[in-house]
């Protein structure tokens, strides 16, 4: 007979208040395996904390998105948003599935080129493109998405210098009825800036306007905003066709689709409130199909969604460092990862599961990270079974923005492991070492020596 596990005693206040509609919510289902690979083994092999990415999860999600759009529209292309997760192995999964690349800096651009993405399949977005970036994009025939007039003028100059007519698109911002309105990027639709830029490009005839781009916000919970956006984009494209007898080749609807994370302050769980790909696709495709394009002249629909594709495939595994009681009586648990690694903890209430079996007793606690900083809070309140030092936890839905926004602060960044379709684990990023940080440092000679 298996010995029962020891659990420390806990005192719990009798909760006589009203239950919420889901009963007393607990998140203590043990999560011991990711794609049939044991969490314990992974931590043993690669150390704690550890990011784990499920290749199966990525591919299934991608297929779901592709299905949702291709069943509603004849010409669809996805472009992998590098800033969401630019670990090369992850990028290449998307490229293998047929995704282009969408980048917003020279660094990301070179990363995509190095991964082997053909130049004409790298979309160059963002407000900060250096002369060097623009020259490189022109040489590689990458579509440049223009953010502001200064950039338009500079690209025009550099194109003349190179003696070519590069393909460009302009970023449009617009009122889609949501707040905040992202009007800091691109040219506004309502006040005529967009038409101003279009006229300038087409009449100057130095650049080839092939597309229109928009990106109406992030973590959008309302698909109808996309219907408004698609309608306005189509209106511009048809306007260009009527005015200049020119067909816009593609409409890039950007990204911003919500993942299944729960935003802080949200009453309901993200898994229940986030729209599905089908809902976003329905809003966008219906608007485009009804916009009045000729069947043969429907523009290519490009989607740059990142978060919704990769978030759920990412897991962060960690261990308990210690338990303590706070002054106000709340219980606190200190974990070996904090906001330096899990940057998205700033805006999500991440779902966290223990990675081993427990009894049914649970307790509210604050989850802290290991940093000597007061802001290092992973969850302000989380109902978990009593955890002991050395126990493991799994943070869910961390695939997006963490492996790019993580900080080397106080401690080093953890390793990243990919579990492939055949349940084999591959190390795709090494745990950082002292050397990985110091390799870029330069020591002036007079500072080399000191005596204490």
């Amino acid at each position, binding site marked *: 007979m298996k010995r029962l596990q020891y659990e420390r005693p806990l005192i719990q206040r009798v909760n006589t208040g009203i239950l919420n509609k889901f009963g007393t919510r607990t998140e203590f289902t043990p999560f011991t395996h990711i794609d049939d690979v044991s969490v314990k083994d992974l931590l043993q092999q690669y150390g704690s904390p550890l990011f784990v990415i499920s290749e199966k999860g990525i591919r299934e999600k991608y297929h779901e998105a592709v299905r949702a*759009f*291709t*069943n*509603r529209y004849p010409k669809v*292309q996805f472009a992998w948003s590098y800033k969401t997760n630019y670990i090369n192995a992850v990028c290449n999964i998307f490229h293998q599935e047929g995704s282009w690349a969408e980048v917003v800096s020279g660094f990301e651009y070179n990363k995509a080129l190095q991964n082997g993405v053909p130049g004409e399949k790298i979309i160059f977005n963002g407000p900060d493109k250096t002369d060097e970036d623009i020259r490189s994009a022109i040489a590689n025939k990458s579509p440049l998405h223009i953010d502001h007039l200064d950039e338009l003028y500079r690209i025009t100059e550099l194109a003349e210098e190179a003696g070519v007519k590069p393909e460009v698109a302009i970023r449009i911002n617009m009122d889609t009825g949501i707040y905040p309105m992202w009007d800091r990027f691109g040219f506004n639709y309502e006040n005529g800036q967009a038409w101003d830029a279009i006229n300038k490009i087409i009449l100057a005839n130095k650049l080839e306007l092939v597309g229109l781009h928009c990106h109406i916000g992030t973590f959008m919970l309302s698909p109808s905003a996309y219907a408004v956006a698609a309608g306005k984009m189509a209106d511009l494209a048809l306007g260009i066709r009527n005015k200049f007898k020119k067909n816009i080749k*593609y409409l890039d609807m950007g990204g911003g689709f919500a993942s299944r994370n729960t935003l802080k302050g949200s009453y309901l769980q993200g898994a229940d409130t986030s729209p599905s790909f089908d809902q976003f696709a329905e809003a966008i495709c219906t608007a485009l199909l009804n916009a009045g394009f000729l069947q043969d002249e429907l523009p290519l629909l490009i989607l740059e969604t990142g978060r919704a594709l990769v978030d759920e495939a990412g897991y962060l595994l960690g261990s308990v460092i210690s338990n303590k009681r706070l002054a106000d009586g709340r219980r606190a648990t200190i974990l070996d990862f904090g906001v330096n690694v899990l940057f998205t903890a700033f805006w999500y209430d991440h779902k966290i599961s223990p990675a081993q079996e427990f009894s049914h007793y649970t307790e509210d606690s604050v989850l802290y990270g290991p940093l000597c900083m007061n802001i290092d809070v992973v969850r302000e309140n989380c109902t978990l079974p009593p955890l002991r030092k050395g126990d493991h936890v799994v943070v869910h839905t961390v695939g997006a923005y963490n492996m790019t926004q993580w900080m080397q602060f106080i401690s080093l960044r953890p390793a990243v492991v990919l579990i492939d379709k055949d349940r084999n684990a591959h190390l795709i990023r090494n745990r950082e070492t002292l050397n990985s940080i110091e390799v870029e440092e330069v020591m002036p000679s007079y500072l080399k020596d000191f005596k204490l």
Partner: protein
Amino acid sequence: MPLLSVSYLKKTISSNLILLGEGILHSYSQLFFSDNRWFAVLLMASTFVDFNAGLSGLVALVIALSTAQLMHMPTSGIRFGVYGYNSLLVGLVMGSWYSYSLHFWLLLGLISLFTLLLSVWINALLVKQRLPLLGLPFLIGTWTLMLAVRQFNSILVSDRGVFIFNELYATGGIHLVKLVETLREFPLPSFLEVFLKSLGAIFFQYNILSGALIAIGILIYSRIAFLLSILGFFTGYFFYGWISNSMGDIHYSFIGFNFILSAIAMGGFFIVPSIRSFLLVLFITPIMVILLSALSYIFLQWQLPLYSLPFNFTLLLILFVLKLQEKSGGLYLVQIQQFQPEKNLYRHRNELERFAHNTWVHVHLPFFGEWTISQDDEGKQTHLGDWKHAWDFVVKDAQNSTYRLSGTEVTHFYCYNLPVLSPAAGTVVEVLDGIEDNPIGGVNLEDNWGNAVVLYLAEGLYAKLTHFKKDTLKVKVGDYVKRGDILGNCGNSGRSPEPHIHFQLQSTPYIGSRTLPYPLTYYLRRKADGGLALHSFEFPKEGDKIMPVHTTRIIRDSLDWKPGQVWLWSVEDKFKKSNYTLRWEVTTDVYGRYCLWCATTQSTVWFVNDGVQLYFTWYDGPRKGLLYAFYLTHYRVLQGYYPEVELKDTLPLNKASKDLLRYLHDATAPFTTWMKASYYFKFTSVDDKNNPRQLIYSTNTNTQAGNLKLSKWQGEFELNENQLRRITIKGPHFNQEALWIGE
């Protein structure tokens, strides 16, 4: 001006002489159902073994054809010898029976003219029944001549053949006499001797030499015809011997040639050669024996030879009867005459394989993206009885589920509210709207079909799509829709427990009409390994994951060949190390079919562009040059860029293979196939998948005998800015690259 008219006259005369020359050659080869010039020369030579006969035959032929030319008879009748060969035969008979004199020549001319008139008239009568002219004018002409000559004392029966050695001595001295004696004494079994002499008898040359020449000619012309000639002759020969206990006419007048002619005609020329056509010969020949015996008894009374009367009568009888068949019972009449049994066979087989299932109106899948068939033809649930030919479509995810979440609401279903497209161009004839969606699991048996649209596609062909979501229909009765126009959105109305599209073809315009089995023209099917396969004119099955074919503009525009278009190619012949320019023209034939024409090689390629594929249907011309190579390697092209799709097709063996082994294959071809010419097509590269400006595809054309690989062709084609710009073809003794240099 006079200069001009002289040159014009010269031109007219030379073109008329060419026509006459062609007509003469074809008149000889026509006698053995061929259009081969070398065979014609051989046959002509064999008629001159009896010089007098050969000469008078040729003279009669020239008289008939040039008269037909002067009378402006249809050129095709002259060119293909239709108006000539009957007079030729009359001339041959006259030359071998009567001796030359002034009267002879005059009579020859007149009887030749008479036969020409008969040929034109009888041909016109028979063409209406789609029957061949055969030798009726010859028979009437010859019998007329023979009966008349009995009154004409000035025409003398030739005594050649009576004093044969005198003649031989006079012609070639003692050596010739000895040679002929040796040949005559040549130890041949009697049946073989009779066979050869019967062959010679077709040209009224009752000797072994002529027969042997003709036999060799037939073997070169067609292995199948040679087999048939043996089968026909010996069936008749032995049946006659067995039933009459003597060899009578067969030995005496070599009337057995009737069996040979009808065997070739029935077994492979007018009917596609097959085991059945051989059996037909086996059964019809004994009937001919009976006919032959009966007729010879009648004709004996008038002392007239039968000649080919039994053959003519039997063949017309068989062909006429076969034309009345409601459907082909394995004996296929040759539709477009290729003038060789092998060619008839290879073309027939090829067309059967490629086009047997083609339909006139093209019908495509009515949606975007990948769907799954949840119920197909004769489905177990509701596609029963009169309504069995239909498809139900749903969308499934990777886990094979049709819904997300709990699947208890229609909105959980992936296909719910997806756009439903028009499967073909047509007119909306019926629209039903206003029926609410059922809750999941419920069915509305009162409004069985739910919200529905019926489209008129062609006379007797309607498409019906049902179970639309209420108030999503965008069309009304009388609207004309193109393929791919949105009709409405998928819903769950009618007899539909979960959202799906029901699609059927029917022959009447009502919502409750019974269904019609009608294949989908083109669709892509997801294979188990994740790749895609193109299906054409097929019925997708339950569980198939399928999607419609979208065409790619650059391919469509590059292959949109319209009559009047001219292309100039700068060709580099890397094999012969030379350069030249070539001119191809898109044109139409008399039937309005599109074709490519190359004046340099005098060759034509027929093509069909159905909007999804461009494919070649036939090639006519010499088997050399760039257009021939283009025919082999650009045989079928998909107009949508799908790099995972590989097309496969087969070519008629006689067009693709120049291998010697094929001549052996010919002999067995009616019974079995062990050689095959296959074509493979694949996209190689593209600059931008979604808006391509440059695209390359490559093809392979291989001939294979069993596992033995024979000739191999490779083609690579580059499209650039809506034009086929580069053709690179390598093959046996062939390596050319052509660059488009203008229109």
